[in-house]
Structure formats: structure tokens, C-alpha cells
């Protein structure tokens, strides 16, 4: 990947992020913050590569901590977001669920 292509990716991704969030209702701000927190858990793949290429004990130690933290970010972000979003149901869906339960 050449520098200029990387720069294009950076710009397009920045606009994408802005557009995706632009018209979000306040009710979803916390779940969305949590969801985007999960998405940057992708740092896990970088941490894996960094530890995979580490040679000295110092590099390995830091790499180990990196993978540990990144895995925590990804898994924690997922669990917490999923728990929050699990609660979003409309009264229609709720009434339907209640009827089925009876």
C-alpha cells in the first residue's frame, strides 16, 4: 500500500464514520459509543502481528500485554454492547412477545 493510497483510505473512512453517526438519535449515543469502542478492538489483529514478530524478552513482554489488552477491548466491548442493545425493543415487539408468552 503506497502512502497516497493509505491517505485516500484515511480520508474516505473519516467521512464514512461521520456520515454513519450524523443522524443518530440521542437514545443510541451510549450503545453507539460502546459499539465503536468494540470496533476499535480490531487493534487485536495488530497486537497479534506485533507479538508474532517480537524477538527480545522485552518485545515479547510488551507484545503479550498488547494482545491481552486488545483481546479485553474486543471481548468486553462486544459483551457490553450486546447487553445494552438486547434491551431495545419497541412496544409493538414487546406486546407481540408478551402475547406469544401467554
Amino acid at each position, binding site marked *: 500500500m503506497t502512502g497516497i493510497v493509505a491517505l485516500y483510505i484515511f480520508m474516505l473512512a473519516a467521512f464514512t464514520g461521520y456520515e454513519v453517526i450524523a443522524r443518530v438519535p440521542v437514545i443510541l449515543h451510549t450503545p453507539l459509543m460502546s459499539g465503536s469502542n468494540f470496533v*476499535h478492538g480490531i487493534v487485536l489483529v495488530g497486537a497479534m502481528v506485533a507479538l508474532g514478530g517480537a524477538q527480545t524478552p522485552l518485545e515479547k513482554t510488551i507484545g503479550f500485554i498488547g494482545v491481552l489488552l486488545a483481546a479485553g477491548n474486543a471481548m468486553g466491548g462486544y459483551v457490553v454492547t450486546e447487553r445494552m442493545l438486547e434491551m431495545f425493543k419497541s412496544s409493538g415487539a414487546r406486546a407481540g412477545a408478551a402475547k406469544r408468552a401467554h
Partner: protein
Amino acid sequence: MPAWLSADLAIQASYFVTAALFIIGLKRMSSPVSARSGILWAGAGMAVATLVTFLYPGMSNYGLILPAMFVGAGLAWWSGKRVAMTDMPQMIALYNGMGGGAAAAIAAVELYRGGTQGYATSTLAVAGGIIGAVSFSGSAIAFGKLQGLITRSIRFSGQQILNLVVLAAALVLGALVASQTNASPAVVTGFFVLALILGLTMTLPIGGADMPVVISLYNALTGLAVAFEGFVLNNAAMIIAGTVVGSAGTLLTQLMAKAMNRSLGNVLFSGFGDTGAAATGEVTGSLKPIEAADVGVMMAFAQKVIIVPGYGMAVAQAQHKIWELAQLLIDRGVNVRFAIHPVAGRMPGHMNVLLAEAGVPYDLISDLDEINAEFETADVALIIGANDVVNPVARTDKSSPIYGMPILNADKAKNVIVIKRGKGAGFSGIENALFYLDNTRMLYGDAQKAGAELIQAIKAV
């Protein structure tokens, strides 16, 4: 394996799919109807990317990678499942800080190893390193404050100067590392230590009320750090995901700051509460208490009741009781609505999450713009542990530090009932003029207990 199907192609193709899944997932999370499936899409993307990364050419240390993944993910899974809904904000801060720390760790490994080639790459590694490290230690402080481990906001004169000195020193060492390409380990270590200290000294003076904005900011910063390290590792999935989070998080941070009528600079560089105590303003009238039985009758025979929850409801874990109360009223034919201020609670949307947990359908919940015109036709506005977000001085008193903050116009309702534990002021330390109005009555007590009393009172009608 056919010749065209190399490990590299499989990795690139999988990262491409992952980036698409992340964007689709986030897009779905931005609407209440599709939000629940959004996390599944993003989760599938993460699983694909993680698995395919094991195919990376030249990888070793699998004996370290796997245990680190299992321990990190296991601890996070365990804590994420256990945490109460009211404590979500600090858990987001914690997991976010871990991501920042991981980005800094990547930078550290690459810089110690001298694995960065060219000034551009080493500069990006250093930039991602400092941002990630600040996000790591700063988020740890934010977690400590919201969890109640750190109760005081440490402020002293010359604090901004200290921050600037630490920042300048970190930048000097960072520039040394970036320009020499193969900087000595001592310089690299010094750089990271300073970056971590910067995160601490920047976050310690910020008050608990501002933590949501700070967490959101660190979330965006972590995204940016991940993107920078993605450039270093030539990893498109990290660049795209990190940048999307960076820009989305920045926008989210601005929306939150705007909802509190404060600029980001104001949040970061001035302690809230400093000005609040000085500008209490004169409030006339008296606090008029009321009994739960009277409130029950008042609400049972009302046409329209608007409930305004605040942090007090979260502290008392009263959301289930309040929904039970609302259901009783709905069964009696009362039009019940929930009005949520953008910054009620500890985080925007915090109240929505708690009400959703209790089972309140989201279409009964309205935000500021939707509900404000309706207070004039409401018979009762029931304020549960909310304070600053319903303080009318934000509309009227130019000397007040919250002047100009958009508020819920609860004071326009025919009757205002305030459930409150005591007579103290809100987060901002400002007296609330609403409590002294002629149409306001105070129902003292913890929101859980008051809710139970109200339920009894309405059942007795």
C-alpha cells in the same frame, strides 16, 4: 492450495470483508429498530479478522499469543457479563483504555525492534503511541472516578503549565525517536512513561460530571491511535476501523459537549464546579414538601404525566419501580411519557439504557426537542433525581454557569413533583430555582423507596 490462493490474498480479502461488516454494523446500530443486529454484524467481522490473522506469514510466538488472547478475552467476558447496567459508563471507559494501551504496545514493540522504516512510518508509530498511552492512563482515571475509587478532583495552580511541560517533553522525545529511526531503548521508554503521565495529569482535574465527554473523547483517540498503528503495520482493516471510530467518536463527543452547552476546551481545561459555587444567584421562595399519598392521588387522576429521570434514579436502581408505577398509571388511562435530557445521568443515553433494561418501550421515551412543547399540557411532571437538566435558571440567569444549556421545561407543567434524597445541589453545585416554584412540591427520599410508596398510593386510590 492453488497458486492464486496465497495466505496473503486470503488475509487481504478477509480484512476487506471485515471493514465492510464493521461499517454495516455501525450503520445498523444507529437506528433503534436495527441496532440489535448491528453488533452481530460487527462481531462477525471481528471473528473473521482475528482468525485469518493466524495465517500471517512469518508469525511466531503462538505459545504467547493464544494465552494472552484467552486471558484478556476471558476476563473481559466475565466482567462484562457481571457488571450492572448502571455501571456501564465506567466499563466502556475501561475497555476503551485497554484498546488504547494495546495500540501503544504495538508502537512500543515496533519502536524497540526498530521495525519502522522511513520517517513517515516512525512518526505515525510515535503519534499512535502517545495518543494510545494517553487514552490508556486517562481512561483508567475515568474508570476510577466513575467507580468511586477516586473521589476528589485534584486541582492546583500551575496545573495547565505542568501538563504543557509534560506534553512538550513527550513530544521532544517522540521527535527524537521518530527522526533517528533506531532510537535507543532508553529514549523510547522515557517517551512512553511521559505519555502515560500526561494521560494521568490531564484527566485527574476533570470532574465526574464531565466524564462522559472525556470517555467519548478517549474513545475517538483510541480509534485514531489504532488507525496510525494500522499504517505502521500496513494493515487496512486497522486503518479503516480505527479511522471510522476516530471520526464517529469525534462527532459523538461534539454532540455531547453541545448538549451540555460546553466546548470541548472548556471541559478539558477548566474544572466544573469552580465557577458554580460562586454564582448561586438569589433564589426566592421555600421548599414545600409533600406526602407520597397525595402525589399518588394527583397522578392517578391526571390526564398526562411526564416522568423526568436523572442520575438519582440510576443510583437508587429505581428504573424497575418507576416502570411499574408508569404501567399502573397507563392502566388507569393516564398518558405517561418519559422525557430524557441528552446528558441526564452519567452518559448520553444512560437513562434510555436503564429504562430499556426495566422494559420501558422506547416509543414512550422522548428526547428534549420532542417533549419540551408538551410540558405545558402536562398535569404532573415527575422529576426523579434530576437536577441541573431541569433548572430554569439555564434559560433566565445570565450569570449562571449553566446559562444557555438546553433544559427540559418541567417548570411549565401544572404540577411539578421532585423526588430527591436531600436538599443538596446538583453536580454543578447550583441551586435549582425549579424546586422553589409555587407549583413545585418536594417528595424526599431515595427514588426506589419513593417509587414503592407511590405505587402503594396509586393502588389505594
